[in-house]
């Protein structure tokens, strides 16, 4: 008797599922306000992936149906939108990209056990034992070990001078770097703090020179990075200048001019990456939207394919099972070209994959080297 009930119930559920045959997801992004560029790129990337997947028959035969929501770059709005998405019974949430918004909105998706992919990069997001949060990019704590290893192994430096900006961003990066440097056998011989908004970098650069370091690591915001580069050139610094993403960003190159040439930086995602899947993505994105995607576009695109890989691994549309399947999952770009680069998701939702060293040459960014994933060494 009981068995019949159960069978009937399962049949009904299956029938309902088949009739629906769609996966509802919510894109919660910064489409206006300060984060508009980042959010719009993420959204465009994600929508491109959804279009492709649906055209190819969906995930396990289910079409993806996305609702697009604007956080206005406001954490309060983002939290409200996350609550609404959860109430609507979405299968997964993508965003927001601002760390401040993500930190408040992820509580909602966690409570409802909804997988939440984000482009936010604050270290704290994956340090809360939230089993439903997944990153789409590196963070300070995952990229600094790569930078330190690059300086120690590829540049053959024994010691390094660190010039950092004394704010949350700079201190977080400097702490992560110094820790990673110690692990890579790299000695920090000068630890030079600078102020946010500092104009004259003659003293910090002089200190770096006096330390006789084999390389200098510059970690600051855009304007200060540009000023530091100018001063390094002025004082005739001839050893490697290494940084993280910002240092070779277009804005810094514009501001620093000539002085930016030769600067190196570690970049997690770039459309210039020398891989056929990245080239294909770049072309598709440009064809669709008539401009070149930034790293947030890549994040949006790959996040949808990460969900697809997770659902296919779990083999069913079950949020908890998918979240479980995603942890520890290695997705190879050969099998799933949509993830663009081979990626491994760890148990906190952090990513490991290859990344790039960019060099500024003649005012242009050029990929100089490909760094293997951290786990590979």
């Amino acid at each position, binding site marked *: 008797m009981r068995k019949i009930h159960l069978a009937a119930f399962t049949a009904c559920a299956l029938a309902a599922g088949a009739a629906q045959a769609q996966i509802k997801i919510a894109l919660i992004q910064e489409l206006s306000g300060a984060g508009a560029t980042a959010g719009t790129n993420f959204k465009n990337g994600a929508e491109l992936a959804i279009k492709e997947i649906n055209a190819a028959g969906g995930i396990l035969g289910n079409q993806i149906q996305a609702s697009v929501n604007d956080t206005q770059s406001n954490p309060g709005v983002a939290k409200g939108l996350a609550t609404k998405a959860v109430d609507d019974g979405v299968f997964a949430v993508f965003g927001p990209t601002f760390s401040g918004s993500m930190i408040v909105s992820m509580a909602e998706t966690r409570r409802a056990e909804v997988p939440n992919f984000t482009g936010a990069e604050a270290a704290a997001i994956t340090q809360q034992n939230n089993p439903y949060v997944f990153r789409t990019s590196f963070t300070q704590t995952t990229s600094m070990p790569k930078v330190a290893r690059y300086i120690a192994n590829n540049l053959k430096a024994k010691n390094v001078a660190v010039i950092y900006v004394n704010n949350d961003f700079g201190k977080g990066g400097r702490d992560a770097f110094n820790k990673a440097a110690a692990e890579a056998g790299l000695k920090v011989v000068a630890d030079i*703090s600078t102020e946010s908004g500092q104009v*004259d970098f003659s*003293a910090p650069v002089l200190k770096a020179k*006096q330390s006789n370091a084999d390389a200098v690591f510059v970690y600051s915001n855009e304007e200060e990075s*540009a000023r530091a580069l100018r001063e390094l050139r*002025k004082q*005739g610094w001839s050893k490697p200048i290494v940084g993280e993403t910002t240092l070779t960003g277009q*804005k810094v190159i*514009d501001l620093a001019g000539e002085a930016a040439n030769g600067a190196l930086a570690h970049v997690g995602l770039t459309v210039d990456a020398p891989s056929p899947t990245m080239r294909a993505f770049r072309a598709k994105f440009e064809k669709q939207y008539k401009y070149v995607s930034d790293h947030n576009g890549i994040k949006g695109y790959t996040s949808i394919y990460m969900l697809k890989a997770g659902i296919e691994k779990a083999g069913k549309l079950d949020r908890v099972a998918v979240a479980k399947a995603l942890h520890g999952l290695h997705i190879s770009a050969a099998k799933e070209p949509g993830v663009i680069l081979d990626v491994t998701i760890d148990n906190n939702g952090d990513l490991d994959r290859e990344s790039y060293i960019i060099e500024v040459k003649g005012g242009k960014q050029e990929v100089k080297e490909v760094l293997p994933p951290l786990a590979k060494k």
Partner: protein
Amino acid sequence: MTDFLQLFFSGLATGGIYALAALGFTLLWQASGTINFAQGEFVMLPAFMMLAFLTMGLPLWAGFIITCAVAVVVLGWGFKRGIADPLLRFGMMPIVVATIGLAIAMRNGVRAGYSAEAHSFPSLFADKLFNIAGVTITLADVGTLVAALILVVGTQAFLAKTVTGRAMQAVAQNTDSATVLGINVPRMIFYTFAINALLACAAALLVTPAYLAKFDMGEPLGMKAFFAAIIGGFNNSRGALLGGLIVGVCENLASAYISPAYKDAVALVIFMLVILFKPQGLLGKAVERKV
């Protein structure tokens, strides 16, 4: 020793920038008894004006000339009529508060209307480096310092040597006697405000390549210039120059030999020492309190 000289010369260039802004403080004070706490923003606004003209396709010099004209009207005449004239008769405090408010309004106005991002600004000087006995100096450093010197000395000469300049000084020293002597007092005071606006434009032209055009670029500049003016002597234009250079050089030396964290405290420490031991400033003359 080379290190010291490197810091010293870099500091001189920064100091020249402070001196230009400080000159505006002393000028307004001498001529009209006004303290303008929006001085830094008076430099920021012309920078953005020039930037706007540049994006419209005008060459830098044309943009600069138009900006000067606009600045004389807006930052000179407008400031005098809108804020200084109505408030000055109520004493110093209302002016101080009003100019602080003006500074906030200008900063946020530019942030909301233009953008919060930093914009690069073309330099007047070619991107050239000189290496003299191990000390590297850029052409921009030398150019900024020389231009600042010429402007300060020129302003001083204008005040001391020309009839108009002397009339302006007469107004500053004793408004009533000046009126009796047939000097057009309101016009002289307007001249001071106009010169202040022009100096701000010149400062903008010199500092923006290094500071980058940003809505909050005037904040540190205005504060340092204020300290520099007090240190040098609030009633002496040459004092502004000396104060600016002292602040620029000491900051640089302190950040290298003491700690970068104390860089900004240096100007304050010198400021306090001067106030304690020579309240009229290093080059200032002790004057009877003006009523």
